[in-house]
Structures are given as C-alpha cells and as structure tokens.
C-alpha cells in the first residue's frame, strides 16, 4: 500500500530523538500559549519562528516544532474557556457556552477530560483524512466561489437565533453590532477606507483578537471590581477529577459527526476553525433538541466544538499544502515559514517534497498522542489554576492579555480599543446581551461582505447569481430551514429554560 510506505517515510523523518523532543516541547508550549487569553495559535507560532531560525533547525524539525505548537494551542484554548469563561483563542469561544457552566456545576475536571478527548478524536481523524484524501479534497476549493461562500456565511448567521441567550432579538442585535464593526477599515472593492475617522490604526479594521480579549477578559475584570469578586466567573468549585468513561461513550457520535463537519469547514479556505466549532455546536444543539440542556453544561456542548475546531485545524492544512491557500491565520504563518525554508506549497508539493509532507503528517500524529497524554492525566495540573485566589489570578490574566495584544501589532491603540471592548462587554452583561455573536460578526463580516460584493461584480448586479449553483442552493435551503424551523416548531417545544447565573 502506497499510504503505508508514505507513512513509513514520514515516521522515518519524524521519529528522531530531536524531533520527538521538539514535539513534546512544542505541545507543552502550545498548550500554555493556547490557554493564555490574547495569545492564540497564530501569534504563538509567529513568536517561535525566529527561535527556529536561530536554533538552525532544518525544515522538518522546524515544522514539527511549529505544528506541535499549533495543535497544542488548539487543545489549550479550551482550558481557560472552561475554567475562566474566557476563551484562550477564537475557536475556543464556543466551548465557554457549556464548558463554563459545567465547571460551575462542579464538573470542571470532567469538562476538561471530555474536551481533551474530543480534541484528540477531532485532530486524529483530521490528520488521517489529511493523509488519505488531501490531494483529492483540495478540489473542493474550486467549487466554492463568491456565491457559495456568501451562502455558507448566511447559514452560519441563520442558525444564530437563540444561541447563548433566551432572547433571539438580543442575539440578532449583537450579531449586527459585530457585522457593523467588521465594516470598519479598507473597503476592498473601492480601495477607500470607511468609518475610520482618518485613523490609520483603524484602516485595517478591528482585529478580532482585540475584541475577544476585551469582551471576555477585560469585562471580567470590571465585573470583578464591581462585585469585589463575589459574582465573578473565576473561582469555580472543584469536583473530583476522574475519567468520565460513561460520558465519553455517550458523546461518541457527537465527536465523530463534529470531526467530519469541522474538517470540511477547515478545508474551505474562507471558513476555518471558528466557523467549524460554531457549526458543530449549532448542529449538535439542533440534534439534541430543546431537552439537550445546551447552554447549561451539556457534555455534548463541550465535545462538539472541541472535536470540531481541532478537526478544522487539520482540515486547514489541506488547502495550505495543496494549493498554497491558507485557510486560517495560523496556516498563513506556517505558509510563511515554508516559503522562508524555500518550500513552496502548491499542487506539486506532494510529489516534489514527499519527505516534508509525510514528515509533517507523521509529526502531527505524534503531537496528537503527546497532547492526549499531556492533557488527560495532567488535567489536575491545569485544574490547580482554580486554586489561585481570583485576586492574584485575574491581574495575572489581565497582564498577559495586555502583553498578548500589544505583541500583535505593537500599538497602544489596540490596548485602548481592547479596554473599550471591555466596557462594551460589561454593559452587554448587564443587559444580558450575548457577546459571542458580536465576535462572530467581526470574524465573518468582512469575508461575508466581500463575497457578496464579488458575486455582484461578477454577475453585473444580478441577484439570482447568489442561488445559481447547486452548492449555493443547498446551503441557502439549510440556512432558511435553520432560521425558520425554530420559529414554527417553538409552540410544540418547551421554552428553553433560563440559565441560572
């Protein structure tokens, strides 16, 4: 079998003491970087690039280190989502919705183990899929034009209704605010800047990391100050940490479904891990129905987004390796590293440099097992973070957030903007407006607008173009069903229960 000889080649490259050591170091660093708010996989990898060069690592070793950090950060993002209600990076945002309620119910350990295993399943299946079908799968990207992408984003927003809030109008309001913020910056289709007030710092738009750290971490500080720490998120009770075999078995289909959906979201260059975790969460919520308890600590609500975003991380490597199209911020950084090492990803990479491709795949498999070993038995170490009194923990988190955001662009303006988002997040909490749709609007708004306007340019303003391909039509039907089905089914279903805070 060709696959096995290829994998043998890959492991031959990846299984040296040095690369194994690098994989362990990378996984550990990645987990920590992922868990720290404001430091996500993309800046984690970017920070390490100069180190790989000054250590003089060769192409394979550098890739092993950086992809271990990448996968590690995807695992690590969930830790602060669950323990602090602050997503460590943007794809971990959905994990706060059920992970944090679980932690509040005294099941922090269970949530961490379940999400760790879900991450493993997602990442493992995605890596295997990458090895098996990458060259064929790359063709999917050719099927997605502006109309198809616009329909995909429309689907994401159509399923937003009722998420994380009992009040759909508030969720809609929040997503429109996010979409509005996404309009700030350079208008790609006219070449002019909009809504920047002449400020150069705004002409590239608002970085979603600034928004996430502001809305989640900084607003947490404000709540903490107001209540003297009494109703703050930090300081959840600790249950016993055991492996919840029963729960893991119960979520087996959730993990498999979510891995598949997440992988496909990752393969589509415009979608990425955040959309992957969002879609899988909404899909599982839909399957479970109103009795699934989503939003109040459902185990499936933790397993789905984690399997989804880790599978998407693997999926995003498909267009990067086979087309040279980065599907996410982190793969854009990895692409840069490859180019610097004089490896040009593209349609011929698999045949030109099998050592690099299969070495990478083998090292991803190794990293994945290292991460499982690191994340499940070592859950206790991470849970210990809870024992730090909030008065120490929160300032530390705040400081790291500031350093992380400053490292993005080195501009004070972003820090001010982050505080402004913190104030906004605080006000939203007071008014019980969910903040996740704001982030989603900022994340997807730019691409959504761009694709709509591209579609209009290509069709000469003919709106039926948006529905003209079978893929677009199917996505639109799913979007309409997703939007209207809850409205009509509501009378037959129980009202969602209020979440006790």
């Amino acid at each position, binding site marked *: 079998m060709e696959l096995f000889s290829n994998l043998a080649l890959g492991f031959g490259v990846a299984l040296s003491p040095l690369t194994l050591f690098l994989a362990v170091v990378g996984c550990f660093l990645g987990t*920590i970087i992922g868990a720290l708010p404001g430091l996500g996989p993309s800046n984690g990898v970017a920070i390490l690039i100069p180190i790989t060069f000054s250590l003089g690592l060769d192409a394979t070793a550098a890739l092993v280190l950086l992809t271990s950090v990448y996968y590690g950060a995807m695992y690590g993002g969930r830790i602060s989502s669950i323990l602090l209600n602050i997503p460590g990076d943007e794809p971990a945002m959905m994990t706060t919705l059920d992970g944090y309620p679980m932690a509040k119910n005294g099941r922090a350990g269970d949530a961490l183990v379940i999400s760790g295993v879900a991450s493993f399943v997602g990442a493992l299946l995605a890596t295997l899929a990458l090895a098996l079908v990458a060259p064929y799968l790359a063709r999917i990207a050719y099927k997605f034009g*502006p109309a198809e992408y616009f329909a995909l984003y429309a689907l994401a927003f159509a399923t937003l209704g009722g998420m994380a809030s009992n009040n759909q109008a508030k969720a809609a309001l929040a997503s429109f605010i996010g979409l509005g913020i996404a309009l700030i910056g350079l*208008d790609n289709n006219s070449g002019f800047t909009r809504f920047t007030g002449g400020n150069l710092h705004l002409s*590239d738009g608002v970085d979603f990391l600034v928004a996430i750290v502001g809305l989640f971490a900084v607003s947490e500080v404000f709540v903490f100050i107001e209540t003297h720490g009494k109703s703050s998120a930090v300081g959840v009770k600790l249950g016993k940490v055991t492996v919840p075999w029963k729960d893991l078995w119960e979520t087996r289909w959730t993990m498999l479904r979510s891995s598949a959906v997440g992988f496909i979201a990752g393969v589509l260059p415009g979608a990425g891990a955040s959309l992957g975790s969002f879609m899988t969460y909404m899909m599982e919520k839909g399957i479970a129905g109103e009795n699934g308890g989503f939003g109040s600590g459902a185990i499936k609500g933790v397993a789905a987004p984690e399997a989804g975003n880790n599978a998407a991380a693997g999926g995003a490597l498909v267009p990067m390796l086979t087309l040279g199209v980065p599907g996410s911020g982190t793969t854009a950084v990895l692409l840069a590293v490859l180019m610097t090492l*004089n490896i040009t990803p593209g349609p*011929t990479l698999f045949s030109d440099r099998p050592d690099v491709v299969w070495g990478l795949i083998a090292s991803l498999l190794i990293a994945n097992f290292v991460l499982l070993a690191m994340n499940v038995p070592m859950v206790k170490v991470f849970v210990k973070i809870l024992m730090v009194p909030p008065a120490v923990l929160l300032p530390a988190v705040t400081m790291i957030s500031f350093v992380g955001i400053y*490292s993005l662009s080195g501009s004070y303006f972003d820090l001010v903007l982050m505080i402004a988002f913190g104030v906004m997040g605080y006000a939203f909490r007071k008014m019980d407006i969910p903040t996740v749709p704001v982030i989603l609007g900022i994340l997807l708004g730019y691409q959504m607008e761009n694709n709509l306007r591209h579609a209009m340019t290509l069709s000469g303003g003919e709106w039926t173009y948006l529905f003209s391909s079978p893929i677009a039509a199917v996505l639109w039907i799913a979007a309409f069903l997703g939007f209207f089905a809850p409205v009509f089914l509501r009378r037959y279903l129980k009202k969602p229960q209020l979440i006790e805070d």
Partner: protein
Amino acid sequence: MKLTFLKALGTSAAISLMAASSVWATECIAPANPGGGWDFTCRQIGKILFDIGQVDAPVQVTNMAGAGGGLAFSTVVAERNEDADLIVAASSATTTRLAQKAFGDATADQVRFVGAIGGDPGVIVVAKDSPFQSLTDMVEAIKADPASVAFAGGSAAGGFDHMKPLQVLKAAGFNDITAVKYIGVDGGADAITQTVGGFTQAMTGDMSEIVGFIKSGEVRALAVLTEERVPGFEDIPTAKEQGYDVVAVNWRGLYVPGGISDADFQKWADRLQAVADSDEWKEAMAANGLAPFTKVGGDFQTWIDGVIAETADLSREIGVIQ
C-alpha cells in the same frame, strides 16, 4: 498557586524580552502579518545578512501590520526617524499606496528607499481550458464586451494586481477601463482557485504565486510583464513581444528612516548589495519564482519617483483617487 503565577510571570517576561531585544539587534519591520511578501523579504534578507556575516546578531523581524503598510510607515517617520539599525520591507505595494495617498499625508520623500534586490514579474493567467490562447485573444474579447472577462487578483481594488491588466488594456488602446471587472481576494493562490473554478476568467498576480500551478498544468500564463522572458519560464511570452508595452514587476526591497546619515544609508546600500550578490539569495529567488531585479542606492530613488508619478495618473483615471 505560586507555581501558576510564576509561570504566568515567566511567560510574559519571556515575551517582553523578545520584544525588547530589538534594542540591541538590527530590526526589520515587515509592515504586515506573517505570511506575505513583506514578511518573506524581512525574514530572507534578515537571515542572509546574518548568514553572510553582514550583521553580528540575527536580525529581529517585527510584524507591524496596519493600514496596508501605512502604520509602519507613519511609525518610522514619527518615532524612528533617526534609527540607523532599522530596515523596513517594501515592494510595489508601498509605492502604489504612497501614490494613492493611502498612507494619509505621508509622502515617499519622508523615508529613504535603499534598493530592490529581486522582482516578482507580473503575470496574467487563465485556466487550462480557457478559450484564450494569447494575450491578444483576451484583449480583443474585452474590447468587444468588457463584461465578458472578470479578473481575480490578490490586492484590493486599485492595488497593484488590479493595475496590471488595466495597463495592458490601455496599451492596447482600450480606454473604458472602469468597465473591466475585478475582484480582490485574499492573495494570489486564492485568485487562482477562483479562476480554475471558473468563477473568474483570468488571474492577475505575481510569478511566485503561480509557479506550482503552472508546473501542475492547471493554469496557462498568457503573458509575463517583463522586458525579457523570465529564466526558467522561457515558454511564457512577454506582453511586450505580443505588442503591449507594459512592464510591471513587484520588486522586493527595503527602505530606511529618512533622518539617518548618508554614511549609514551607504552602509545599508552596501549590505543590500552583498545580499543581492550572495548565492543564498539567488537560491531563495529561484525557489520562490523571483527574477533578478537589482537597483540599489541613489538610482533607485529616482526610479521610485517615476513609478509613483505614473501610478498616480492611472489611479486618477480609474477613480481610486480624486
């Protein structure tokens, strides 16, 4: 508990250290996020400067994304004007944006352009099953019906990739250039997938972006926008030999702060020349589809001024500046 806190402190200390290390090392600002051409310029030139012994310590690369390079430009002008240990990656996009006043009131004479040491030749590419066999076929089709051909490119409307087909069309005597369809996507590879997928009829971009796709046979290049055919790609005809006198090369180079001494400027010009002459750079160029394009020192500044004036004229015509 103490452990976690210390860990947190340690991590932030390590990060601040990395940021602060620029105080003693040469710094190269890539005015964009990691992954683009400017990042490549900084990392390659920085690596080679150290490898060939032109600098004593590895060059620290800082990514300062914002305003399409405008943030870095204004920071250099306002805060680092006399820093002799600072270089900034630049390319055609820098001059295009300066010409279009996209950096606010900034002008090209506020910094000193050291030189270009490689160029990414402009290309116009179609899918392998496209009906267009030559640039002339395409130009004639657009003349007959401007809406029949849509271009995809990696820059925003009004950017360098948008300008390339417009320059060709103008050279062909077609003046209704605002009728030409163009969509700006996220980079050249994305523009190619849109073209191979049949959503647009042609891709406009740089040679480095299409190398893999040319080799795999998924796309055909109708023309390369250089004076001579590009070594290694001799079967791609130039626009010039097809009768359209257009040269558009996305040069890769550096600028330095405007306030440094002539001696320091000369020092950077010499170092850049040394990189241009090194085998390492020739290798990096070959691997990334760059063609030799070396203009270093005083001549480069004159050339830049001419390019900016030309770009400003074309931009006025398509309406991206008044």
